[in-house]
C-alpha cells in the first residue's frame, strides 16, 4: 500500500527532529516549496503519527528519543500499512550503511542545505505514482 495525500492534495512530510532551529527552517523551506509539514520530537511519537496519517515522506534524525530513527525506519518498513512511506534518514551521524540496512530510501548528512533535501524528497516522490509533487518544488 502506498502512502497517500490528504484531500487537499499536498504531499505531506513528517519530520522527526528535536532541534528547534532545524524545525523552524524545515517548516519554512518545505512550506514555501508547497508541502504540508508536520513534526514529531521523538521516534515513538513519529511512529504513531505515521501510522495514523500516512505521510508521503518521513525525514528522521537517528538520534531521537524513545525510538531512534533507524528503529523507526525498520518498523515503518516492516508494517504493510506504512511500508510505502519514503524514509529519509537525515542525521548528524555518518551512518549511511546502517540507514541502508534499516531500509531507508535515502540518507543525507546534516547540516541542512534546503535544495539538497528538497531535491532528495522530490526524487523519492517521483517514484511514487500516487504522490502529488508540489509545483513549487519543481
Amino acid at each position: 500500500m502506498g502512502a497517500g495525500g490528504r484531500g487537499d492534495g499536498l504531499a505531506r512530510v513528517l519530520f522527526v527532529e528535536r532541534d528547534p532551529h532545524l524545525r523552524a527552517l524545515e517548516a519554512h523551506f518545505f512550506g514555501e516549496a508547497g508541502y504540508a509539514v508536520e513534526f514529531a520530537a521523538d521516534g515513538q511519537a513519529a511512529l504513531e503519527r505515521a501510522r495514523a496519517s500516512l505521510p508521503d515522506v518521513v525525514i528522521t534524525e537517528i538520534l531521537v528519543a524513545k525510538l531512534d530513527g533507524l528503529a523507526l525506519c525498520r518498523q515503518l518498513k516492516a508494517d504493510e500499512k506504512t511500508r510505502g512511506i519514503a524514509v529519509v534518514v537525515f542525521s548528524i551521524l555518518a551512518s549511511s550503511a546502517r540507514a541502508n540496512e534499516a531500509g531507508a530510501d535515502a540518507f543525507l548528512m546534516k547540516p541542512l542545505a534546503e535544495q539538497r533535501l528538497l531535491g532528495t524528497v522530490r526524487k523519492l516522490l517521483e517514484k511514487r505514482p500516487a504522490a502529488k509533487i508540489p509545483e513549487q518544488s519543481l
Partner: protein
Amino acid sequence: MSIVEVPNEPDTLTRITTGNAQLDAILGGGFPANSINILMGEPGSGKTILAEHLIFANARIAGRPIVYLTTLSEPLEKIVRYLQSFDFFDEDRLATGAIIYESLGADLEANGIAALVPRLEEIIKTRSPRIVVIDSFKAIHDVSPSLPDMRRMLYQLSGLLTAYETTAFLIGEYSDDQVSVFPEFAVADGMVELARKKLGTRDERYLRVLKLRGSNYQEGLHAFRITTDGLDVFPRLTSPVLPLSYPFNEARLSTGIAGLDKMLDGGLWAGGAILLEGESGAGKTTLALQFILEGLQRGEPGLYVNFQENPIQLARTIQSLGIDLEDAKRKGLHFLYASPVELQIDSILVTLFRTIEEQKVKRVAVDAIGDLVGAATDLTRLYNYLYALVQHFVVRRIASVMTLETGPGRGPMIGPVSVQSDVIVRLQLERHGNTTRRTLQVVKARGTNHDLDVKDLRITSSGIEVT
C-alpha cells in the same frame, strides 16, 4: 531496496579558502566548511581585510550568496567605500547579489541582542547564505545587558548556525584577556588573531591560529603584510620532516675556486652549507658570487640574496669579475635584494623559498646573515629560522654559502651559525706596515680531510684565486 545516498554537492566545500594560498596552508587547507570562526585583533590589524578577501574569493555569481552583516561600529557605507581600493574587489559580485551587505545596526540599537537571532534566521530563510560574516561581533556586547544574556543569545545563535549549512565569521577587536571571558569563544570552532608589533620606525604584523577544530594547522606567529591584494602572508619557517633515509651523494661540487676546492678535498657536498666569515673587504661577497656563477656554468640555477649592495652596485661587482650579467641571468641567476631598512625576516625567507621552488635553484648565497640580526625582533626566532633554512637546503640538496661579517661590534652570531655549517671558511686581511694581504683558511669541514693551512687569496679580474 538500494538506498539513495546523496553526495555532497560541489557547492558544499570541505574547506573555505581565504583567498590566500599561504594562509590556506597555515589553516590546513582553509577554514572548515560549516564552522563558526572568530577573527580577532585590534583596530587596523587587518581582520576586516582578511574577511573581505575571503568573501570575494568564495563568491559565485550563480551560487548561494555570501552575506556580510555590519553591526554597531563602522557604517556599512564606509566599509564598502574603502573595499573598492583592493584588487580583489569585483563590483559584479555585489551587483549580481553574490555578495550581500546588510546592516544590523538599527535592529540592534532598537531591540538589543534579542534582535540578532531572529534577524539571522530570517536571512537564512530568505537568502540561503553559504557564508555569513558579522562585523563587529564584539560591538554587540555594548547592547547586551549582561554576559549571561550574551551567553544565552550565543547558545541560540550557535544552534542556528550549526543547524544550517553555512560558515560563519565573527569579527571583533578582542584582546587576549577576553578570550576566557566572552562566551563567543566557547562556541567558536576556529580563532585567528591578527596583531602588530612596533619595531623601531615600522610595524611588523603577525597572525596566529589559536584554535581550529578538526584541522592540522600551523602553530606560531606568521608574518604578513597588507597590500592592495589583501594579506600577503609569510608562513613561519619550520624544520622539514626529514625522510628516514635520503641518498648520501658522494659527489662534491666545485666552489668555483680551484684552490679552495683543493683545500676541501674536491669541493662541497651537495646540500652542504659554507659559512664565510671575515671582516669587511676580505672578499666574502666576491667568493659567494663566484660560488653561484660556478653553478651556472654547470647548469645549476642560483639565487643570490643580499641586504647590502643594491642591484646596481651588485651588477658592477659581477661585471668586475668579467661576467656578462644578462648572460648570467639567462643561465639561471636570480637575485633577492631587501633593503636593510625594511627587512622583515619572514617575508624574505618565504620569498626565498618561493624563488627556490619556482626556479629550481640548486645554489644559494645569503650575503650577509649578520644583517638579519639587526632586523630580528627575536634572536631565538632568527636562529631557529636559520637552522630550519639549512635543513631545508640539506633535504633539497641545495648547496649554500652564507657570509658573516666579523670584527668589532658585529654581534654574537658566530656560535649558533657555525654549528649548523658544514664548512667554515675564514677570510682575513693581514696588515704589515703599508701592505695588506688577504688570506683564506678552512677552519672546519665536516667529514672532509681538509687543508688547515692559511692560504693567500687574490681578487683578480677573473675572480678569486687561492694559492
